Every structure is written in C-alpha cells, then in structure tokens.
C-alpha cells in the first residue's frame, strides 16, 4: 500500500481540480491531485474548439490549451498528480480524511486534513428524459460523440439526429458537419436554442445546419442499429401535440439533454445534496456540509464558462486555507435562498465569521429584458444589480458585499425581477 500524506487532496484533475491545486500550492500548502482518467485536463481534452478563457485570460483558447496552462503551472509548483487513480473509499479517521484509491501502481492511501472534490458532471441519458422505443446501436450522448470524433477519429453515423439545443449539442453538430456527416438535424423543445448566442451563430447558422425548435424525440426506431426516430412537436409546456408525430430516418441519435453533477461519492459520504442542482450544498467558500470537504466546478452545478468553474476553485482554495488555519465560523450559518424566478443558486449559505465578499452563481428560471437581480431580507431589499437580459440558458454571477449578508442573520433571498 502506497501512503501519501498531504495538507489537501484534490479529487479530479479537470480544470477546476487543477485550478484548486495550483492555488493551494501557491498559498503554500502541499497538495496531490487524484485523477481517474489517463491524463489531466478532464473534459477540456476533447474540447478542441476555442472559446475557453475569455474571462480569465482575455483570449479564446482551445480546451487543451486552457488545460495545459494549468498543467504546466502544476508542474512548476511541483504538485503531485496521480492519473489512472480512482478513489474507491473515503473515511474520516482521527480528524483526517483518508482516501483509498486504486491505480495500476497499486492501492494508495491518501491522508489529508482537507479534501477538494472536483469530479465534474456527467451527461443526462435518454432514459432520464423518458425517450421510448428500442435501445439499438447508434444512440449516444453528445460528450461521448465529441470524444469519439475528436480523439479517436470515428464517426457515430452518417445521418445524425441531435437532440438538444444547448451548447454541447451545437458544438457537436458543427464538428460532425465538418467531419463529413452527410445529414444533420438538431431538435429541441424550446422556442429557440438554449445555448450561448455566439454558439448559435458560429456552430449552427454559419454552417446552415438544419434545426427544428419545439420538437422532441418520442421514440427510437431500429432493431440492431438505429433506423430512425419518431419526432413530435410540443407546446409551450413541452407537452407533445397529438397527431404531429413524424418518422425521421437516421442512423444515429445524439442526446445533449443536460448535465448532472457527479456527486454520488459525496452523497454516499453523507454530504447534503441540493435537489435543485443535484450537487452538494455548500457555504460561501464552497465547503460541503462535511467539514473540510470542498466541492468546486461543475460538481456544484454545470457552468457555462470554464472561467467561472475555475473561479469557484480559487475561492475554495482560500476556504481550505481558512479551514486548515482553524479560522472561526459563525454559530449559525446564514442561508442564501433562491427566489421564485431563480432555478438554482450556489452557494447555499454563509458560514464563516469573516472573509471575502460572497460570489453567487444563479440560473434564472424566466426570461427577462433589463432585469434586476435583487437580494432581499425580511426587512426589504439589501442590494440589486442590473443586467441587459436574463434567461435560463445564462448563468449569472453576482458579487455580494459580505456586510450586507451579515446584517441579515435570518437569511436572504436572491431573485430576478
């Protein structure tokens, strides 16, 4: 058994895990990164398109470029990175976290006083959106297809139906178009694409890729291989309109229907889970309900920009520092609650006695022109900030002065108005 003792162990070597480890090392802590894949970089390795780092570096890098800037820094700082190493068990032993992991080198025991989880998210499956029909070859999730095409040079099919109008779906559509897929169609239940406007332009409109709003897949057809799909139009409430079913012949169906945090290990460990995000409940430094266990990046909730995911890692690194130096916590945490027009909000509470301002990330549940993002307590509005527009597809970031929150110990509500 290989024993590794560190101040902090970071689980997950994607951008957020790398960022956390880099910042922790810069703060002077010893850290190790544990990554189950073959190499560091996480999902960015397969994201060969550009657009990463616009907020953080002020330029549009490709995924591998963005990741390598952190990987290089990690090397410079001398942080240990264990790839092909998978954490199978976590226990609290005498005030330390002990992580048992397996790797081709043997079984490892990581011992540390803090753990940062950065396990990212997974793709929702067709089963989670109740697609019917058969389960033949030719049904995939979009991330898998991206990996297949970009890293292995293999196509999923020749006539491909893409389900979902989010960023991942659009980006995959463009790649398939460029790689020689003969026929493409993108369908989604919303009235318009749910992803970033720049992706709509650059991935779909610029290439003339056909799409159908207000349309979903009802059934997959085909015995051994996909032969097609039954499409159906939906109303404003996404309910299928009877009689609008249509058979669409294709040989592959690619689902890009949302991402879910990979929180099962945290859940098994007993961390509180937010039913809205399906990720862990965290305080303002992204510490979970388990003391000394932090969660960062897409494990909290899938972010639109890797830059935002990375920011949570930087903040968590400061939190780890506070935890390790034994800084004071409040007797009673102050809850941060989403208002009626907010679908999800992280973090969930303010728990430390002092520190930096509170960085909030929220996803509206409504579409609004010139909205106010307002923060209220029982005594009235504490703070607001304006935006040009708000929509469910855009994550909002709000910097909330700490003093305002501390003045309302019973909690605040964040809403879009």
């Amino acid at each position, binding site marked *: 058994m290989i024993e590794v003792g560190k101040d902090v162990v970071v689980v997950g070597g994607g951008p957020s895990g790398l960022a956390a480890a880099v910042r922790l090392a810069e703060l002077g802590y010893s850290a190790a990164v544990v990554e189950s894949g073959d190499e560091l970089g996480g999902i960015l390795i397969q994201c060969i398109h550009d657009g990463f780092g616009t907020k953080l570096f002020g330029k549009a890098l490709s995924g591998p470029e963005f990741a390598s800037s952190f990987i290089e820094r990690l090397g410079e700082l001398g942080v240990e990175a264990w790839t092909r190493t*998978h954490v*199978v068990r976590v226990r609290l032993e005498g005030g330390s976290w002990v992580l048992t992991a*397996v790797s*081709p080198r043997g079984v490892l025991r990581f011992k540390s006083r803090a753990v940062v989880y950065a396990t990212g998210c997974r793709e929702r499956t067709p089963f989670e959106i*109740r*697609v*019917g029909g058969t389960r033949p070859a030719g049904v995939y*999730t979009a991330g*898998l297809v991206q990996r297949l095409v970009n890293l292995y040079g293999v196509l999923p099919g020749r006539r491909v139906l893409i389900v979902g109008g989010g960023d991942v779906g659009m980006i995959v559509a463009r790649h398939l178009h460029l790689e020689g897929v003969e026929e493409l169609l993108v369908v989604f239940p919303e009235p318009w694409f749910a992803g970033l406007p720049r992706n709509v332009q650059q991935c779909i409109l610029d290439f003339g890729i056909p799409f159908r709003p207000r349309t979903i897949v009802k059934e997959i057809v085909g015995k051994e291989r996909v032969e097609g799909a039954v499409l159906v139009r939906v109303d404003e409430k996404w309910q299928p309109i009877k009689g609008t079913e249509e058979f669409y012949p294709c040989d592959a169906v690619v689902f890009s229907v949302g991402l879910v945090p990979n929180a099962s290990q945290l859940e098994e460990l007993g961390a509180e889970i937010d039913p809205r995000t399906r990720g862990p409940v965290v305080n303002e430094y992204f510490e979970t309900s388990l003391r000394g266990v932090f969660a960062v990046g897409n494990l909290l909730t899938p972010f639109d920009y890797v830059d935002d995911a990375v920011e949570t890692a930087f903040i968590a690194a400061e939190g780890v520092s506070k935890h390790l130096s034994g800084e004071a916590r409040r007797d009673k945490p102050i809850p941060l609650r989403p208002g009626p027009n907010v679908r999800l909000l992280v973090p969930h509470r303010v728990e430390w006695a002092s520190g930096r301002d509170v960085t909030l990330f929220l996803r509206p549940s409504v579409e609004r022109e010139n909205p106010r993002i307002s923060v209220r307590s029982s005594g009235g509005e504490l703070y607001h900030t304006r935006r040009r527009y708000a929509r469910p597809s855009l994550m909002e970031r709000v910097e909330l002065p700490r003093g305002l929150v501390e003045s309302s110990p019973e909690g605040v509500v964040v809403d879009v108005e």
Partner: protein
Amino acid sequence: MGLEKKVRKVLERYSGYNLSCEIRDGVVFLYGRVRSYEEWVEIGLEVGRIKGVEGVVNKIVWDGYPAEKVREREERRRRIFEENKGRVVGSYDVVVIGGGVTGTAIARELSRYQLRIALLEKAPDVATGATKANNGMIHAGVEPPRSTLKRKLNVKGCRMYERWARELNFKYKRVGSLWLITPRTLEKYRRFLPGPLYTLVLKYVLPYIVVLKGIINGVRGLRVVRGRKIFEMEPYAARDALAAVYVPWTAIVDPYEVAVALAENAAANGVEIFTSTEVVGFLKEGDTIKGVVTNRGVFLCRYVVNAAGVYADEIAEMAGSPEYTIHPRKGVLVLFHRSTGSYVRHCLAEIILPPPPRTKGGGINPTPHGNVMWGPTAVEVPDKEDVSVDPEEVQLVLAKYSTILSEFPRDRVIRYFAGVRAATFTEDFVIRPAKWVRNLLHVAGIQSPGLASAPAIAEYAVQKLREMGLELREKPSFNPFREPIPSLRDMEPEQAEELIRRDSRWGHVVCECELVTEAEIVEAIRRGARTVDAVKRRTRAGMGECQGGRCLIKVAMILSRELGVPLPAVLKEEAPLFDGYVRGEAW
C-alpha cells in the same frame, strides 16, 4: 364431447369469420382470417384452455398480418439453407438450439455424460433473448395452477437454485417475498363484502387462502404477517397494508449471469458453443433429423433439443413437427439507481384480484447488486422481436407500483427495457418428444417462471432424452464448479493490492459507476465475450447511472485491442457500435 366438437364450439362464437380447424394427435390447427391481432390471441387462448388440447398452431391471419415479411424471412432461410447444406461442421450426439437460460442449462446438464454436444445460438452471445430482460426473480411456485408442468418444475427448480449458485458461483440472494394485502386487494368485490366484513376478509381470510394455495402447490413455510410486523420486515411498505403473506423461498439472481455461468461451465465440460449460428433448416430421413443446417454449415446429430425461446415454433415447423404457436407477450421493466436499494428488502407485490391485465405478476424486486426493479408489464405483441418501450408504459409502471412503496425515490430511474415471453396458447411449458419427428425434443413455452424452473427443466429434459433412447454414461471428469470473474467492487483493499501486483490492469478502473477494471473486461473477453453488451453482462461495465456515457469508448477500445479489430467494427449486441473513420483516418 369430442375434442373437435369443443373446438368448433369456440370457433362458432366468432361466427362473423369463416374459421376452420383440424386436429392431429391432440394438436389443434386453426385456419381463417380475423380482423384484429387481439382476436387472434383470444381465439388461440380459448382453444388452448380446452381440456385435452396439447397444442395450438394458430394459422389464422389478421388484418395487417405481415405476410411480406414472413415470405422474406422464409426466402432468406431457404437461401442460407441451400448455401450451407453440403458443408459439415461436425457430428454430435445432441444439438441444443438456443442459448438462453433453458438451452444453456440443458447443455450443462448433458455435459455430465459422455456425449458430444453442440449448443447453437443465433446471436453473438448467450442470454440475449428473454433471459437478459426479466426481473431475475426465483419464484417459489405458489402461483401456477396445481395441474401444470410449470408448477411442478417451478417448485422443484426453486429448491435446486442454492446448489446451482454454489457450484456455478453466480450472485444469488434468498430475500423471500412479501405479498401485501391492502384495501385495494379486493376492490372489485367490495360490494359483496359490506362494512367491516371487507377488512375482516382481507385480514383474516384471504392470507390463509394464499397459504393454502401454497400448500396445495407443494410450497410450505408461507407465513401470514399482520400489523407492525409488516413494517419491521419492510419499513417502506404501503402504510395501509392490512396483512401480508411471506414466502421464504423466493430469491433473486442476475438472469444473464446464470446463463453465462451455465454456458461457461458447459464449455469447460466439453460442450461446443457456437454463437452467431442461426438454424435455417433440417436434413431429414423420413421422420428422423440427420443434421441441423445453419449459416455455418451442417451439424450432424442424433438428437435435437428445441430451446429456441420465441423462435421455438418456427424451429418446430422447420423440423416438421409444428405443435404450438408462440404468441409473444412483452414485459416492460424499470430499473432504479443503486442508492435506492435500501428501500426494498424483499420481492414485493400487492395482491390485486382479479389481476389487472397489463401488469399481472409484476412487482418490486431488489437485485443482487442493490438496484431495484419495478415491473414487468404484460402486453401481447405481434412481433416477437418487439422490445420497444412505450414511455406511457413506464409511467404506468411508476404509477401502479408506487402504492406498494409510497416513499420510494421514483425519480432515480436509470434505465427501462422490455423482454418478450415465449408463451404458447396452452400457457404451460411444453417439454416432450415431438409427435411427428423421432429425435426432436421440444422445450418450448418457457415463460415465467422459466428462470426459476431452469434447473428442474434441465433435469426433466435430460430424462426425456433418456426415454427417447439417448444412452447416458456418466463422465468421471465432469466438474460442476465454475469460478466467477473476480470484481474490484467486492474486494477489500488488501485483495486488490495482491491482484494489482500480479497484473496492473486490476488497478485501472474503466467503468467508474460500477467500479469495473480493465482486468475484468479482458477476462470477460477471454471467456468469450465478443461485444460491448456481452462485456456489460459479464462485468457490469456501463450498467450504472451514466449508462456507459463515460466508459463505452474505453470498453470498445479494449475489445478492439483484444480482438484485433478496428474500433468501428466493434459490435454493441448484433450491430457495430459506431460508424466508420472520419476523412483520412485509417486503422
């Protein structure tokens, strides 16, 4: 009244149609045309229920009958037959057709004796039909009617499982079942049982009727549970349960694991297993089969066992002894995430009388790996390969069974699927020598509880072969034991450490949801897995909550490397998983 008269009486009820019948040795052949498939099923079942009918071959067609497809299928078979009838693969004492749990069990049972045995399976792997798509329940045998062969073999087979599990080392848990009696149980009869009488009957009469049914069937040890005891046994059971019947014999297995274990053990004892081998016809001399013709050539043989599941009727007809028609009955199952396992301890069902037509027999089952399964439904379908799932049926399952476990996290569905039961119109197992072919044994109509009965079916089938003249000389070298593929999931760190030291692939986790290592996948391939789904059934890679989203390519890459084929040529089940290389790429 003669058999023919009774059959005619049934047909007279469908006077609008011009239906006719013919009876040979107790087998009824039906002819004519009806409007709907439902009527086709109904007539077949009514004739099948007549006492003395030993089989129903339903040649009636319905409006929409896929005549063109049937013709194409026969055309294709004829073509393959002509191409291969002259090429001999080998000579065998027994050829078993069908690699489901029934066929593999019979092959393994036969491998105890000094015989040359071939098992033929159409698909690239065993266990790809009904065997892979049922709820893995080993029933005790309370339900089948007393006089049936099903009842006899079910009761016996269930008792044989423990030994099977010990020898073949598959996961087996005797969890017992709990049948709840609630205010909904006799809803339909409520008007005959006014006021407190209703509850009284539910609490003190019905449970004992069930126990009595068990005793009649030869299943002892059933217990009546009432009040708090129910919730001590099953904490999340319906709060309004008035009583429950506990059946201690019920167990759960992974059905495909059972068939794979049987096939592996059979092969280790000399059975030759031919996958991707489809039977297209027979070479006969008079009323004796001389050879089984397949796409691989001819398997010369002395005896043939027809264990072809939903295709058993077609095999019987090709062999010249059509004695039954299969009417496929589809069942949809809904599978939940492993975290839901803590909600269910027993196989749970709510007794509803009369059983509702689309969900009869279904319930809530734990699985050996901690998942939970709801279902199955029961719907008659014209196409025996129709395993499609109607999302409404998923909703039906979710709505219907939530009365059994109200607090269950129903949103944690990770998959749903369907299987097709190979029902005959007599609705019993058909295990007997063919009436018009000398050396063919039918093992057909193996629907629920076929899995539970499998050990007894195998014994019974071998007994029948002996009666047909097959001489059985014990083989001293027979080894009943089979080792499972070790799994990291079940290991202590020390054990993992030891394995990794010998082979570093034990430390490479490929499927993160189910914790499956590269070594397990390589071992599955070494044992005969040729497809992604075959690997999945042997290792669980891809069975977790992401449903292969993360590990599918990795598994496919390992298959590509181990089998020496390019990635686009790797199969899912029967078709390639992916398409081909992008521009300019090559292997």
